[in-house]
Structures are given as structure tokens and as C-alpha cells.
């Protein structure tokens, strides 16, 4: 009888309990997966922000527009490689709860400053050539079942055109994917020129600028240079790295996010504790048998190994299954009907999960294993009664 078969025989002895323990661990790791995805989603994609991009917005608040003339001025500044701008549209598709972000941009500038938006060359050409053309990210396209070639009607909330008309129609000419799993593919982009000429008021203003700088290490200096350029003008600016800009959004969620994450973590560890306790319990029940094994010639190391192998098998199977299930359900999309546009299970966290599963096996196995190893045969056999 090999050690492996012995482990298996022990696991199959109380099938129901083994099954329940494994399922318990599966649930814990599904929860762990959601915890990682939620943490990632609430961080608003800060960790995929580019270090060489600055976001320039109105100093008072993001809702205040900036003059379109700033673009040329920013381009002149030393250390600036490229400038693009975007304007928030804030329209409604069908009903207000179908919220997704829409912005008017200069297509060529925008795609070159955001290389992580992947479009085929045909889609790019078509979008560049068509005034009413628009592109949208995979997440939003899938959410509403849009296909390339669809006409997307969007009701403006502020930007009316041709004397008060609120309905804007765009031709969907491309669906972009993200180069990295954390890329936000929920935005809808269309031509700024079309938007600016058609709107009834506010011509020539833009929402915010995105600046690519030559050297990420000079980010602070360039940001300061930009702000000084427009100091004491009617529209002062606030320039900061994209990471800091996104972080400020993530921070706006305040302690609610922190509370949810803390609760989830506590739950995860509680379930692990309960499962671990059951595992340790099942070894303690068999102290007498372990003594018998020692009596027939197994040495201490072998007995410890046997117990550890058993615990690690349960934890490993449960953990890997749980992570697999988590990965699958998370890829189906977020549970909050579009409130979290970026929702995925980060690879680094998958690895952390694997580590946690192994640690669980070791920790729950090692206490009873050490007990078993230190066991004096005569004492243990007496316990059998």
C-alpha cells in the first residue's frame, strides 16, 4: 500500500465530510476571486494608467470646460510630446440607468495617445472618414448587443443641436478591445468636429486634455509648467498624471469601498478557519490509527507526511476548483448591472489565491501532524479504549 493510496483511502472514508470541506473551500476561493475583482474595479484602473500621460482639467472642477485654444499652447511647452482632448457628452441611451461614458474626441489624436485601444485598420479608416462615425469598447457593445454598422441613437442631456434637437445618431464603425485586461472598454467615442459644429452653444470649448510627455520622470515638472502657463487666466488648469487623476476618482468612493472589502476579507478568512478546523478535527479523530501505523513500523517523518499530504490534497483541490469557478463567473461580467465597467480577475491575484490554498493545507495539516509525530505509541493506543 503506497502513501498515495493511503491518503486517498483516508479521504474517501467519510465521503460526505470530505466533499463538504472541499466545497466549503471552493466557496471561500470564489469569494476571494470576487474580492480581487471588486478591489480592482473600485480602483478605477489606476494600476494600468500610463506614467507618461497627464490629464489636464479645469482647476475648480472637472465639470468646467477649457478653451480649445489651449491645445496649441500646451504643444509648445518643453517636455510635451503630444496633446489630445476629449469632451464629456453625458447622453442617455434608451433609459438613464443604461449609463456608459461618451466623449467627443479627435479620432487620430485620441487613438495615438491611447494605443491600448485596439481597432483593426479597416475600422480605424472607416471611423476617420465618417463624420457621424463612432467607436465603442467591447464591454459596452456586448452589454447592449451592438454590431458594427448599427445606428446608435443617443439623447443629449445638455448638448442639443440644430435648434433644440436632442436626438443624436451615430454610426457604429468599430468595436475596440483593450490591450491589457485592465483597460476600460466601456467608453463610446465620436468625432469632436461633428459634435462642435452641430451643437447649439458652447462652441470651441473642450472638457479636458490628455498630454503625452517625453519623459515620465519629468511628469511633475511638466504638469507644473502647464499650470503656470494658464495661471491667472479665466480658466486655470490642474494637470496631474493619469494615475493620480484616476486615483482621485477611486478615492471619491470613500470608505464605502473599504468597508465592503474589509467585510469580504473577514468572510473569506472565517470560511477558511471553519474548513481548516474541520480538517484538523478529522485528523485528531484518528490519532489512534496513526499510533497503529507507528506501531507497525512507520517512522515519524512518514506519519507527518501522510497527514500533511491529506490536508494539502483537500486544500489544493478546493482552492484550484474555487479559483477556476471564480475566474469563470467573473468573466461573465459584473454583478451590479454596469456600475463597475472594468471587472476581471487579475492574474497576480490568481497566483496569490494558489499560494493561499497551499498555505491553508500546510497550516491546517501541520498542527495535528506535529501532534501525530510526537505521539507516544503506548499513550495513543490507550486512548482507543
Amino acid at each position, binding site marked *: 500500500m503506497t502513501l498515495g493510496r493511503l491518503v486517498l483511502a483516508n479521504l474517501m472514508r467519510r465521503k*460526505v*465530510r470530505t466533499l*463538504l*470541506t472541499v*466545497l*466549503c473551500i471552493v*466557496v*471561500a476561493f*470564489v*469569494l476571494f476571486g*470576487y474580492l480581487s475583482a*471588486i478591489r480592482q474595479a473600485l480602483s478605477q484602473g489606476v494600476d494600468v494608467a500610463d506614467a507618461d500621460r497627464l490629464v489636464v482639467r479645469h482647476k*475648480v*472642477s*472637472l*465639470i*468646467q470646460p477649457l478653451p480649445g485654444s489651449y491645445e496649441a499652447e500646451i504643444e509648445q511647452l518643453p517636455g510635451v510630446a503630444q496633446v489630445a482632448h476629449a469632451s464629456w457628452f*453625458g447622453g*442617455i441611451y434608451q433609459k*438613464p*440607468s443604461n*449609463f456608459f461614458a461618451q466623449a467627443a474626441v479627435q479620432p487620430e489624436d485620441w487613438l495615438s495617445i491611447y494605443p491600448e485601444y485596439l481597432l483593426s485598420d479597416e475600422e480605424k479608416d472607416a471611423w476617420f472618414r465618417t463624420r457621424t462615425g463612432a467607436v465603442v469598447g467591447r464591454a459596452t457593445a456586448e452589454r447592449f448587443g451592438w454590431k458594427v454598422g448599427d445606428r446608435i441613437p443617443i*439623447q*443629449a*442631456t*445638455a448638448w*442639443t443641436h440644430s435648434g*433644440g434637437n*436632442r436626438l443624436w445618431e451615430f454610426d457604429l464603425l468599430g468595436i475596440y478591445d483593450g490591450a491589457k485586461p485592465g483597460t476600460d472598454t466601456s467608453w463610446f467615442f465620436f468625432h469632436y468636429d461633428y459634435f462642435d459644429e452641430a451643437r447649439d452653444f458652447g462652441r470651441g470649448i473642450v472638457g479636458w486634455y490628455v498630454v503625452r510627455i517625453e519623459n515620465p520622470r519629468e511628469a511633475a515638472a511638466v504638469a507644473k509648467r502647464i499650470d503656470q502657463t494658464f495661471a491667472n487666466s*479665466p480658466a486655470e488648469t490642474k494637470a496631474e498624471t493619469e494615475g493620480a487623476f484616476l*486615483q*482621485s*476618482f477611486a*478615492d*471619491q*468612493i*470613500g*470608505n*464605502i469601498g*473599504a*468597508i*465592503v472589502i474589509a*467585510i*469580504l476579507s*473577514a*468572510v473569506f478568512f*472565517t*470560511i477558511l478557519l*471553519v474548513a481548516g*478546523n*474541520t480538517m484538523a478535527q478529522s485528523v485528531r479523530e484518528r490519532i489512534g490509527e496513526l499510533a497503529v501505523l507507528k506501531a507497525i513500523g512507520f517512522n515519524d517523518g512518514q506519519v507527518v507526511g501522510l497527514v500533511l499530504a491529506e490536508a494539502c490534497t483537500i486544500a489544493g483541490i478546493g482552492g484550484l476548483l474555487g479559483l477556476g469557478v471564480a475566474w469563470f463567473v467573473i468573466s461573465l461580467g*459584473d*454583478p*451590479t*448591472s454596469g*456600475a*463597475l465597467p472594468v471587472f476581471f480577475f487579475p492574474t497576480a491575484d490568481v497566483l496569490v489565491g494558489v499560494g493561499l490554498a497551499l498555505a491553508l493545507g500546510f497550516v491546517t495539516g501541520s498542527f495535528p501532524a506535529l501532534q501525530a509525530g510526537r505521539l507516544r505509541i503506548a499513550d495513543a493506543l490507550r486512548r482507543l479504549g
Partner: protein
Amino acid sequence: MNWLTQIVALSEVNLRTLPARKGSVAAAMFGIAGVVAVLVGVLSIAQGFRHAMTVSGNDDTAVVMRSGADNEMMSGLSGESARIIADAEGIARGPAGPMASSELFVIIAVPLRSTGKDANVPLRGVVPATFDVRRDVQIEEGRTFHWGRNEVIVGAGARREFVGLDLGSKIPVGQQEWTVVGIFGANGGLSESEIWTDAAVLQPAYRRGNSYQAVYARLESPDLFQNFKDRLTTDPKLNVKVIRQTEYYAEQSTVIVNLITGLGRLIAALMGLGAVLGALNTMYSAVASRTREIATLRALGFKSSPILLSVLAEGAALALIGGAIGAGLAYAAFDGFRAATMNWQSFSQVAFAFSVTPTLLAQGIVYACLIGLVGAVPPAIRAVRLPIAQALREP
């Protein structure tokens, strides 16, 4: 022995053996208490947010915005439109004229206390009629601002959640500094998250000329709403939408309430599953260790169904006690906990308090009983289906 006395006798046996089974019973109860505490706790966040939004609205108040705008931020009304709206029939009149409050709504960046980072705080420009329309606003400390001066009053929620909004502090707005001269409360409503000042002072600071974003009109009675709405929306001089204040706030809170309840339900479902598995494990061990005991009872002539019922009753009782403990814990830990978060629809911060309502508590306890029953049924069935002779031989 008839069926009922059998149940009583069995329940007594169960009760008497409880001390011997302390560990496993406590584990099951603790697990269920945890599930309920978390479920109630997370849902109380959404409940509190909803409460802050609904307490603010009055049925007799209509919100008038530019047609197509889904919130004040996106709306815009010329001074002329605001005047036409204020003169409309159906609006209640006070000593100072019609109770129509033309308001300007912008956001300024003020650091959150909890993170130390800038957050969007709503800054509302108001007119004298505002205080007639928003009756729940009361000055709690200091005084109200003087019209035409760079002075502001701060909602109690905003002062609590953000840095530097205490009495006497200065807020930089554009090139100027505005002084906080008063703190106001609004029964825990939405206004408490805001900073208020004179609209006439705010307009030039934000280069808004003579324009507003919304008019809040208090009607003579809630029934006049439809008439008022029809009158304004058919007026060729206006291009507006009219909505009840209560409905407006309910719409404004959908995204965040969806977010929190979505997450809450998901967490609770997973936890419930974990708790069911834990309870199953505990009950199985409990029943397994009592297999001989149960077989002895059956040998003595006890029927299967009373035994089954007594095991179920124990499961339900444990769950009920665990659920009650969990609900109590959640109430102690979460009720009234103050927080602020971003409401994405209005693009600004809302300060609110978590609220654990009786409905939530009941929900939590019902959920606990479900978990307890689901966890107790399979082991109980197993216990009564084992052949007696075989069960008596079990260790």
C-alpha cells in the same frame, strides 16, 4: 406514546444533550450569525443611502430642469426661463412672493476626511425663496449668510465628512476666498451634504451670467403637479422637463443602490452557501455522533417523523438564535455609521448614515432560518433511514 408527546420527549433529550455538544452547536450558530450580520450590514449601506435620498424629497415640490437633462449638473435655465417658471399658476405663495427657488448647482473640490484626497462637494447657489421651499433646512450653528457677500453655510454632513468646512474657515473659490458663517441641518437629507451660498454671488464666480440650473417649485397641493407640469411643458417660451422631487431623488440613487445591493446579494449568497456547507458539516457530525442514540430511541418505539422533526426544530432554533445574534451585531455595528460616497449620477458626494431597518433585520433572520433548515434536513433524513440494527453497531 402519541406523536406529540414523542416530540416533546425528544426535544427534551435534545436540550439535555446540548452541553455535551457545545462546540459544534456554537460553531453552527456563530457561522449563521456571521452570515446574517454581513448581509444586514452590507444592505444597510444601500438602505441608508436610499433614506438620505428619499427623506429629502417632498411630494408637493416639483423640480424643473432643461428638457432632456437627467440631473441638475447637465441642466441649464436662463434667468428669463426661471422667471417665467416662478410666475406659473399653482405655485404656493409666501410673504416674499412665489415659492419658487431658482438654484445654481456646481461642484468644488474639497478633501475627504477618510482619504485626505479631493472629492466633489456640491456647491448650491440659492435665492431667498429657497428657504421657503426647502423647509427642512435649519441653521444649527452660527448664522445664515448675508445676501451679496462671499459667505457660505455648510451642511452638517459635509462638515463631518470633509476637511476644512468648519465654522470660520475659508474656502477658495476661483480667485476669491469665501467664509463659512453657519452650519445647517436638514433631517439627514441630501442638502446636508452641500454647501450653500447666494446664487447672485456664485453666478459671476463660475461665469454663469444670469442663468440657473433648476427651479424647485413648491405647489399649493401635491395634486396640482400634473396641471403644473402640462402648463410648463406646453409653454412655447420654455423647453423644460418637470418631475416630482421625490421621483427625481429616487432616480438619482439607482446606480449606487444597484451597486451596493448587487454586491451585497452576491456576498450574502456566497456566504449563505458557505454557511449551509458549514452547518451541514456540523449537523452531520452532530447526527453521526448521535446515530446510536437515535437508533436506541427508535428501538424504544419512537417513530421516524418525530425524530426528524426534532432534529429540524433544533436546526431551526440554532439558526434563529444565530440569526438574532447576527442581526443584533449588525445593528450595533452598522446602524447610524456615517459615511460619504460619490453618487455618480449627480457627480458629487453624498454624506449619509447606514440604516438597519426592521425589514432588513427580518430579512436576515428569515435567511438564517432557511440556512439552518437546509443544513439540518439531509443529516436528519440519514439518521432515521439507517437500519436500527446497523445503527446500534456504529461506534
